[in-house]
Structure formats: structure tokens, C-alpha cells
């Protein structure tokens, strides 16, 4: 009950922190989406998949690095504040997006690509009309994973003075105030779930029904 009374008594403060959190997330994540897809596409171009495979192994391994380590490293080189935090979150979100984009594009059926080429599509048309549309499930799953991880990690980024909902948790820790810790954690989780649902809805609308049926088979 102390949890709810804390929440209701501090609505303006909580809204402010939620906004900060969302802001950290949106900037770092959307930059990561653009950059990640771009790197994923570039690394699988040029007919040889070698670079793509290298990118896959690097990004695959990087996913094992703990988020706190990334934030700590960025803190050492860039100091405190929202900017280093955004940068750390960007780097951390980049990994699953790049990994999934590259793996989605690499696993695009060679038959479809041969048919597309044989029918007279240009390389660009093959990318935009065949490879990317059929890789949407893989890319979307990377984008959603990145979003959830990003929102969770953004809470830790409060450690280096980035603000956000993490601040409530860290204040709670200092004061040994369990309801604050819970309130912060609850809000972070809620935000992550909402964003994930929203992204799932977007994924549904842009993904072809044919792909869905193909997965079911």
C-alpha cells in the first residue's frame, strides 16, 4: 500500500522521470534501429557473405557483455550525464538489431534471390522488394529485444546521472525505502511491456500475411 500511496503522492515527479526515461530510450533506440539495420544490410552486400558472418560473430559475442559493464566503460571515457548514457544505450541496443538484421538477410532463400535476379530486378530492388520484406520477422524481433533491453538498461544508466525511472530505484536503495524501489521497478517493467506490445502491433501491420503462414507450415 505504501507503494501506491508513494505513486499517487508523487505524480508530477514520476511523470517527469518517466518522460526522461522514455526520452533516453527513444533517442538511443531509434538511432540504434537506423544504424543497426544499416550495418546489417551493408555487411551482407557485395555477394559475399563473409563480412556478414564476421559481423554476426562479433555482435553475437557482444550480446554476452553485461549492460553495467558497457555503462561503466562509457562513464570512464565520457563522464556523467544524459549524453554518455544515451551513447551507452545506443551501443547496447545496436547489437541485437545488427545481429538479427544480418542473420535475417543471410537466411533469405537463395531460390527467391535467384528468381528475383533472373526476372530482372536490380540489386536495390532485390533488397527492398525481397530481402528486407522477408526478413521483417527477424529484424522486428531484434528491434523488440533491443527496446526491452534498452528500457531495462536505461534504469541502470541513472547511476551515471542520466535521470529516468532508475533514479527512483537508486534513491530507494540509498534510503532503504522498499516502496520506492518497487515503484521504480514496476514502472520500468510496465514501460517495457507497453513498448513491446506497441511494437508487436506495428510488426503485425507491416509484415506480410504470407510470411506468417509460411512460419506456421
Amino acid at each position, binding site marked *: 500500500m505504501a507503494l501506491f500511496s508513494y505513486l499517487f503522492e508523487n505524480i508530477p515527479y514520476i511523470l517527469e522521470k518517466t518522460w526522461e526515461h522514455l526520452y533516453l530510450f527513444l533517442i538511443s533506440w531509434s538511432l540504434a534501429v537506423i544504424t543497426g539495420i544499416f550495418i546489417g544490410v551493408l555487411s551482407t552486400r557485395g555477394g559475399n557473405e563473409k563480412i556478414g558472418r564476421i559481423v554476426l560473430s562479433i555482435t553475437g559475442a557482444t550480446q554476452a557483455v553485461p549492460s553495467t559493464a558497457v555503462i561503466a566503460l562509457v562513464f570512464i571515457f565520457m563522464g556523467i550525464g544524459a549524453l554518455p548514457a544515451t551513447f551507452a544505450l545506443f551501443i547496447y541496443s545496436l547489437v541485437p538489431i545488427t545481429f538479427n538484421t544480418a542473420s535475417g538477410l543471410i537466411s533469405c*532463400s537463395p*531460390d*527467391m*534471390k*535467384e*528468381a*528475383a*535476379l*533472373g*526476372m*530482372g*530486378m*536490380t540489386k536495390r*530492388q532485390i533488397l527492398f*522488394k*525481397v530481402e528486407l*520484406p*522477408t526478413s*521483417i520477422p527477424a529484424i522486428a524481433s531484434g528491434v523488440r529485444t533491443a527496446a526491452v533491453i534498452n528500457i531495462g538498461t536505461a534504469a541502470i544508466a541513472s547511476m551515471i546521472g542520466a535521470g529516468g525511472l532508475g533514479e527512483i530505484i537508486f534513491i530507494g536503495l540509498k534510503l532503504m525505502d522498499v516502496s520506492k524501489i518497487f515503484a521504480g521497478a514496476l514502472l520500468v517493467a510496465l514501460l517495457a511491456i507497453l513498448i513491446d506490445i506497441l511494437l508487436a502491433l506495428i510488426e503485425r501491420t507491416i509484415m*506480410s*500475411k*504470407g*510470411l506468417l*503462414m*509460411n512460419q*506456421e*507450415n
Partner: protein
Amino acid sequence: MQISLENLTKTYNKGSFKAVDQLSLTFEPKKLTVLIGPSGCGKTTVLKMINRLIERTSGDILFDGKSIDQIDPIQLRRQIGYAIQNIGLFIHMNVFDNIAVVPRLLKWPEKKIKSRVEELMELVNLDPQVHMYKYPAQLSGGQKQRIGVARSLAANPKVILMDEPFGAIDPINREKLQDAFIDIQEKIKKTIIFVTHDIREAIKLADKILIMDNGRIVQYDDTVNVVKKPKNAFVDSILGSDRVLKGLEMMPVKDHYSGNFLPINAQEVKTIAMALEYLEKKKKTYAYVIGPRDILLGYCTVEELKRMDQKDELIGQVKPIESVQPHSNLMEAIIRMVESGLTSCPVVDAHHQLLGVIRFETLVEIMSAYERVEV
């Protein structure tokens, strides 16, 4: 469109491996040419050099006399239909969008595309109303293959390249697709270059057969000539030991049946006795019996007529018989003869009107005309 190859060569590993070696030939316009040979003989390489999916090492490919180098590869491919074994339908597009790919690349107006898609779906025997907005995942293997063929025909190309388009289909559906494909080619008359490793498919579909080995031509001739006169032991081995029977399979009855025969007209010859008398006068052991408008009723034999009540009406004692039609092949005629035990088989039209007979002795003549190949 006439496609000619001039000393066409493709080498790999800095010239150490010749996939295609100095190939020179002309593909006949509006004909279906099958490229066949053991795997690694270079047949697919030839096919893919024609739409530049593989770049040649030397020599030239001419389209109506124009070198392939003078044509932009993207434009070239949009003018050549292409169908492959694994079809490669776009799983994220419905049937309509799959067929519409090349017309859209060529920026046809949507209205024209829609009527073209419907026309093609009817051509490959798929109801547009039922299948147009289905996704590949909702289609059977045979249906996908039909869409693959329709897609390759979409922009009305003069030339179509097909790389084992029916290879991944079960034998029963493959036969059906081949039959349907023969009808389609009958209607559209395209220059088709078709790669397969199935000799039965080659004989069934091809106007001309190009047999390849080690990147070279072994024999290039009309299908009938290849089957009748295999150039050497290699061709003979590709054709297989049942070459003669395969030959019969590709010869239509219409070229070999005789209209010179004596049926019994049941309207005039009414009783068993009359039929016997007629047969003995003509020195025949059996005859086909026809009714009004020359409709085939069946046959009767001297041996059986003798054992019957001579006053009986003939029409009640006629034995039914399976017949062939002019477009049937000689193999079917042989099978009918084996079934009936007679030395001929009746040939009828679609209304079951008796046109003539195909005789066993004719078949023997055809079979013995095949040249023996020294092995």
C-alpha cells in the same frame, strides 16, 4: 526470337576447368529445345549464360544477330522468362503480386496487369477467383509450380528459360504438369530452352534435343531423329534400353493408322450367320462392328461366332473394345492390342466414330526401322 551461340565458352579456376567448351548452335524460334546430359555437363551453365546470371568467358550469344554485350543485363532479363526448379515464389507476396513482378518492373498500367494475371492463371488452369489472393504457403507443390510457369510468361517474353521446372514434383503431378505444359506451348509458341536430366520428360516435351557431355554438343537434332538415330553409344545410353518404346510414346497414331479396312456395318449385317458369311468371304478372322454414323460398337471373331446361335442378332453379341484417338501415341495402341489380343487397334474420333485401324505390322515396321547403334 532467334538465339545463337558462337563458340560459347565458360571456364573456371583460371581456365583449368571447362564447363562449356566452344559451343556453337542456333536455338530454333518458337520451338522447345531441351538441354540434357549428365550432371556437370554444362547444361545449366549454358542456360544461365543466356540471361547473364553467369558471365561467359569467351564466345558470344546473339539475339536476332545482336551481341549479348549490347543489351543491358537487367533489360535482357526482363524480356526473358525464367523458371527454376525450386520455383522461388516470393513467400511474402500473394499469387497476383508474384505473377505481376515483371510487368510491374516494366511499369505496365495496373489494369493491364490485372487482366494479364487472370489470363495467365486460366492458361495454367488455376481459377483466378479462388487462388489469386492466396499466398504461396497456401498452395500445393503442383500449384506453386504452375504459378512459377505463369510468372515466367507474365510479360509475354519471346524467350523462356526453364531449369528443371518440374524437377521437385512427385511423378504423378509431374506428368500432369507436363501434359498441361504441352497444351500451353501449343497455344503460346514461345522459344523455350528447357534443362532437364529426365530423358522421358525431354522426349515428351522437346521439339529438339541438345545432348551435352563435358561442355560439348554430343547430338543436336529433332527429337524423333535423336530417338531413331542416336549418334553414338553415349546418346544411346542416355536414351536407355527402352529407347524403341520411348520412340513409340512420342509418335502420334494419326500419322500411322490406315483408313483402308473392312468393318461390319450392323445396320446391314443383322445376324450372326450373315456376319460369319461376310468374314469368311473376306478371309478375315475378326472385324470391327459399326452402327449408325460409323459409331464403333465393338468387334466379333470367326471363332466365337461359330459357337453361337446362328439366328441370333449380331448386335447383341458384339464384344466391346478399347480404342485410341488420332492424338494418342503408338505406345497406347500397343497396350490396347495386348489387352484385346487382336492384331490391330481401332482409331476413333471424339464422337466414337471409327476412323481406321492401327495394325501391329505397322508398329513392327516402325520399330525395326530404328537403326541399331554399335555399343
